[in-house]
């Protein structure tokens, strides 16, 4: 008897433990498609016909149908069974994914009812990542929508291989076979391009045709009903024969203070005595004791939660990936991935995010955008930025090597989140395509003469002063005054100015958001090299986005850095207009001009605020100088 059972028996007397007939896991079915194609109605209909609507909920449904429903008097509005949020019921739409459970004598089901509106695509994709089979609804009257294709593309990207095209509202087209064939045929081509194994079924969710029983109003349809088809669908996973993959969730102390490692086996198997390797460190160890959910075990396979001790302690903790010695995952700091993007701002090359892959977390930079997936044709289109709800193909780089597998081989070690580090929001869901070895062959060369040595020779400490603010705020004027003061004190300096850099190093870049990000990334790297040379670097750039200023701060971490916010009212800057740019922007001759049609995000916590409407440049330059001397 397990120790927990023994404790129960001691406390409550012998407990009743009975055998329970084993059942296969529930089939997880996604229901998606465009707005008003009838997704919620279909689920309600399925639940009702399968007898999964309890009497008291049925009574509530009848009452709700009178209050909110749009049908004829006395007609049940099945969508109200699943649209559980007040806002959904009032507006008659689905906002968030709802999970509903249903059992037939043959099989258990979990249906994920997902929203069709474009603005809730993230919620639809959330549901898709949990499912094995997708029902894509189409409205027989309106035909296929872009959203139908988008949902099919998201399903395919997330690895769903089995799909059903349910052509709904057949009652609205007089149960026409020709109309059904037309829709099914145009979808068939898209499905093939997306590698979806797709069956088309004509239905009427409102009246129940071909949902549970086939025939009725469509004698020409010889195939199975929707439920028949779902009950028989075979979703055995493709076995990639991977060796052990065990992402370590954490280490907890056992009763005797021993270190106990825990995690769920994502692939392969584990037994006491097995020698396992840790990625990315490469260390290896031998498993001493192994526990499964029911106590000590001699073997554990895929999908089992395990706890174990090691024969000899090594450095192992959360975020490490244990693998079989003979079968290693990819180990690289550069990878290609598909990313479903949900950020409110665009996905741009050069931006930094937090990567959460398996149990591991790391900073990550989008190094390049290779394109976006065209949801209708399945082709890759070249783009400079990715908007909300688009699927990007991009390259990502981490500061150190990480361990992963291609998503198609192992979802648990090949899927990741991108998190915005300023807001904490989840902005992307990614799937690894493959490792890129370009990065891993480039290793930083250790050099004998370093920054310290150069600083000693110059008798100064390298540092960066970063001036940010609107055009005309006085950044360059103050920077120039500061440079003169430093120069006269015998300090070696360099001033990187927005316009000068754009005339040379960055002359290939414009003023779109994507180009602004790349502009600043290059400037930050140049500043870093100059600081390594021992120089005091003054940078004068509008740098309007908080995220980029954060990126700059991080790239320059470990060296003296001052962020100086040159603050002046917008009206004053526009009046000064030293380069005549505000006037041009107002006439519409200049686009993406900060303050006019491109935003300036005020720094949250700058090291210095220099108000050029109150003080002359010389006084402000002195204030920076004091800080530089106080905190070299």
């Amino acid at each position: 008897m397990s120790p927990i059972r023994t404790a129960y028996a001691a406390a409550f007397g012998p407990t009743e433990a009975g055998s329970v007939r084993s059942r296969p896991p529930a089939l997880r079915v996604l229901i998606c498609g465009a707005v008003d194609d009838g997704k919620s109605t279909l689920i309600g209909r399925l639940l009702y016909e399968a007898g999964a609507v309890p009497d008291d909920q049925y009574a509530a449904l009848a009452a709700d149908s009178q209050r909110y429903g749009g049908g004829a008097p006395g007609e049940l509005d099945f969508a109200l069974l699943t649209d559980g949020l007040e806002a959904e019921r009032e507006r008659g739409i689905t906002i968030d994914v709802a999970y509903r459970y249903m059992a037939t004598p043959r099989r258990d089901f979990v249906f994920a009812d997902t929203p069709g509106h474009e603005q809730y695509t993230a919620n639809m994709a959330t549901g898709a990542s949990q499912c094995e089979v997708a029902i894509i609804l189409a409205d027989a009257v309106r035909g296929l929508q872009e959203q139908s294709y988008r949902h099919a593309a998201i399903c395919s990207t997330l690895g769903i291989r089995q799909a059903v095209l349910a052509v709904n509202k057949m009652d609205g087209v007089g149960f026409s076979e020709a109309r059904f064939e037309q829709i099914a045929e145009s979808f068939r081509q898209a499905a093939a391009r997306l590698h979806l194994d797709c069956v088309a079924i004509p239905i009427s969710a409102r009246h129940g045709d071909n949902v549970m029983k086939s025939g009725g109003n469509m004698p020409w349809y010889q195939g199975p009903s929707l439920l028949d088809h779902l009950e028989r669908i075979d979703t055995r996973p493709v076995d990639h024969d991977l060796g052990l993959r065990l992402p370590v969730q954490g280490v907890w102390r056992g009763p005797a203070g021993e270190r106990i490692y825990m995690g769920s086996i994502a692939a392969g198997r584990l037994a006491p005595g097995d020698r396992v390797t840790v990625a990315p460190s490469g260390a290896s160890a031998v498993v001493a004791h192994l526990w499964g959910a029911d106590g000590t075990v001699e073997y554990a396979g895929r999908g089992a939660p395990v706890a174990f001790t090691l024969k000899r302690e090594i450095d192992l903790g959360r975020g490490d990936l244990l693998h079989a010695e003979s079968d290693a995952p990819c180990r690289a700091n550069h990878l290609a991935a598909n990313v479903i993007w949900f950020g409110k701002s665009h996905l741009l090359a050069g931006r930094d995010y937090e990567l959460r892959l398996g149990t591991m977390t790391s900073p990550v930079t989008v190094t390049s955008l290779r394109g976006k997936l065209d949801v209708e044709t399945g082709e890759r289109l070249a783009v400079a930025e990715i908007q909300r709800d688009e699927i990007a193909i991009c390259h990502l780089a981490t500061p150190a090597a990480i361990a992963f597998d291609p998503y198609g081989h192992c979802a648990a070690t090949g899927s990741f989140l991108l998190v915005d580090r300023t807001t904490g929001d989840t902005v992307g869901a990614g799937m690894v395509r493959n490792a890129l070895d370009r990065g891993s062959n480039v290793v930083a060369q250790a050099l004998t003469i370093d920054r310290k040595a150069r600083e000693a020779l110059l008798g100064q400490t390298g540092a960066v002063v970063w001036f940010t603010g609107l055009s005309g705020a006085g950044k360059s004027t103050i920077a120039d005054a500061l440079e003169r003061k430093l120069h006269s004190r015998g300090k070696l300096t360099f001033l990187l100015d927005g316009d000068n850099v754009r005339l040379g190093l960055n002359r290939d870049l414009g003023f779109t958001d994507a180009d602004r990000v790349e502009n600043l990334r290059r400037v930050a790297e140049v500043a870093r090299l100059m600081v390594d040379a021992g120089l005091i670097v003054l940078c004068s750039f509008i740098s309007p986005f908080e995220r980029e200023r954060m990126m700059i701060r991080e790239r320059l971490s470990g060296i003296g850095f001052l962020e100086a916010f040159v603050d002046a009212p917008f009206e004053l800057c526009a009046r000064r207009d030293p380069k005549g740019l505000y006037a041009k922007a107002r006439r519409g001759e200049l686009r993406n001009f900060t303050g006019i049609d491109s935003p300036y995000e005020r720094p949250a916590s700058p090291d210095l605020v220099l108000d050029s409407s109150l003080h002359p440049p010389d006084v402000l330059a002195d204030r920076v100088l004091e800080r530089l001397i106080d905190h070299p």
Partner: protein
Amino acid sequence: MDHLRRLEEEAIFVLRETAALFRRPVMLYSIGKDSSALAHLAAKAFWPAKPPFPLLHIDTTWKFREMIAFRDRFAAALGLDLQVHVNREGANRGVDPFSADANTYTRVMKTEALKQALEAGGFDVAIGGARRDEEKSRAKERIFSLRSAHHGWDPRNQRPEFWRLANPHLGPGETMRVFPLSNWSERDVWRYTLAEGIPVVPLYLARPRPVVRRAGALIVVDDERIRLDAGEMPEQVSVRFRSLGCYPLSAAIESQASTVADIVAELEASRTSERQGRLIDGQGTASMEAKKREGYF
């Protein structure tokens, strides 16, 4: 793989993630079958270590007597640290299920009490046994579900939840709720309880009990605090509870299911939902959502 094994693995995975990702987790314990299954899973998840979080019971002081006795014995058997919190201010004001309306009572003695306990304990994440099949707004809940600084739920702005990857970022004052049993149905919980031999409060099992009939509901007369109306006479009926709340607010059902195995069989044939006996749910179509927005668990 077996259905229950998969659900068990998922719950254990979620419990371990919660313990690893947050500073100070706590597991809410309501004494009900879902709570007990959850505490049982926590003991298994960290075996042979102890679960690295305490159990917290929000005591309204109107729980059935059998429940309190069971609670203490159950926590002790699993070796779990049990903390009990009562909204003393509310109790002193005399907020009870007879004199206050059900909504006020629930807000003060459950929702407010929970906020007090979470804030006093400095807990950044609370683990609960709610399931998506219980109720329509629960069906929309994430496994990792963010709460505002006021413990409110914003159902229209939930974080996308992909695969099994949690985003544990919390803003100032924000907390997380975690529901490891999200994908379990009522039947799954009972089948698991049976398979694992998890003890349950005897109120779940049918016994002859003194009841009065009120508005079609069977109310068990638990102690002398219940106020009988003129002419009301308790009668002995074989009843059990499908869902256990505070005793004047939970109605019993007539049943002959006197063992857990009987309950599993009874559920196969049932035509009503589990929360039908919860008298607070029916007030307004989306009343559970309204309570959750206020911070109800």
